[in-house]
């Protein structure tokens, strides 16, 4: 439930009504940024936010995203190493 997608804030369109332009792969839509406007609105420019029904609901934490990806990467490496070891074992077994 609750389709949300990441979009980048590219312009403030109506500061008074907390409206900004979000860009999703080249598709633009004006969104309300009330939920993510803590500091000056200009700080939002360039930031990625999770967009849902025309509202920017949450700023995306790039550090956390990187951490998740790193964990996936590490897991991949580990699995690969394991796989290579397994292959090595199999080869050894085969040779045996």
């Amino acid at each position, binding site marked *: 439930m609750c389709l*949300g997608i990441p979009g980048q804030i590219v312009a403030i369109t109506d500061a008074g009504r907390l409206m900004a332009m979000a860009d999703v792969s080249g598709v633009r839509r004006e969104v309300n940024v*009330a939920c993510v406007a803590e500091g000056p609105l200009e700080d939002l420019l360039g930031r990625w936010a*999770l967009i849902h*029904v025309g509202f920017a609901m*949450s700023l995306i*934490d790039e550090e*956390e*995203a990187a951490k998740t990806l790193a964990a996936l990467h590490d897991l991949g490496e580990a699995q690969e190493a394991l796989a290579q070891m397994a292959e090595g074992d199999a080869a050894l077994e085969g040779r045996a």
Partner: protein
Amino acid sequence: MKFASEFRDPKAAKALLAEIAQLADRIGATREKPVAIMEICGGHTHSIFRYGLDKLVHEGVEFVHGPGCPVCVLPRARVDECIEIAEKSGVIFTTFGDAMRVPGSKRSLLQAKAAGADIRMVYSPLDALELARRNPEREVVFFGLGFETTTPSTALAIQQAAREGLANFSVFCNHITVPEPIKALLDDPDMRLDGFIGPGHVSMVIGVHPYDFIARDYHKPIVVAGFEPTDLLQSVMMVLRQIAEGRAEVENQYARVVPEHGNAVSLAAIADVYEKRPSFEWRGLGEIDASGLRIRPAYRAFDAEEKFGVGYAGVRTELADPEGCACGAVMTGRMKPVQCPQFGRGCTPEMPLGALMVSSEGACAAYWQYGGARAAAE
């Protein structure tokens, strides 16, 4: 970084699937005796089928599709009430596209529109507000539908309407909450679930702590998850790891979007505009205590229930679910869609009997569309 495609990496998926397989083997999960993990959220159900994850994971991992699709749990009587409002003279009834095809007792909104009601699909409650501004002589009603993810948007729209003194805008509030039905599920003695995938976008608003009771009181693991395929696989892995390690915790796989305590502005808007209803009716599940929201008296002017005397403010109709419909059992994970006697017979996407067959979030529709059923039947 686009925060989407990066989380669809087949290499990472491969690693995750391997890890899941190892963990599943480690805890002894088999096809006959699987680990049952409920993805609460319909969005997760959608992703699982779209990427074929159910076929990819270890056969000892079983996805149980939960009640987290606001369209699927909408009682037929509420659809009837939508139509009742929409057919009133002067009303423009606005709704997300999702609700258009949901069957009421006689007609869907799509059919009511065809029969003459002025029903319009919008992408955002802001678009409904704008319609109200542009049509001052009409009454614009927005169908407020959804869980905590969507609730802030209608709360903010109502606040904005109040600021502008927009007298011709109101919301037919059918917002519901996630924790209560989960609790109801867990309290069901027939229930056997080993863990949960938590709805990431709900937690983006409410944070992760509202699920503490699941770990604390029911000793089940729950991982709040994102919607990309590696998000889901990673979350499955994290649930299995908790099980393997004998833990039951609330974990957050989706930390890039979900702050631990949610979004303060959203929560404040919800608290300002809405209050809990004593009880609310769910399709297939019946009345669940404190599971629905209503508009506070301070914003009564924007409450379509009050304005039109329908819903909980009107004479409520009790409508049993259509005969032979197993939606309740499917939503609570007691039955697979294909086990419903109506699946593919009385109930197809062309002519849905239950809402689970309508919404592409619905488990039955997902089974149908992504071939779970027909592929299995071969």
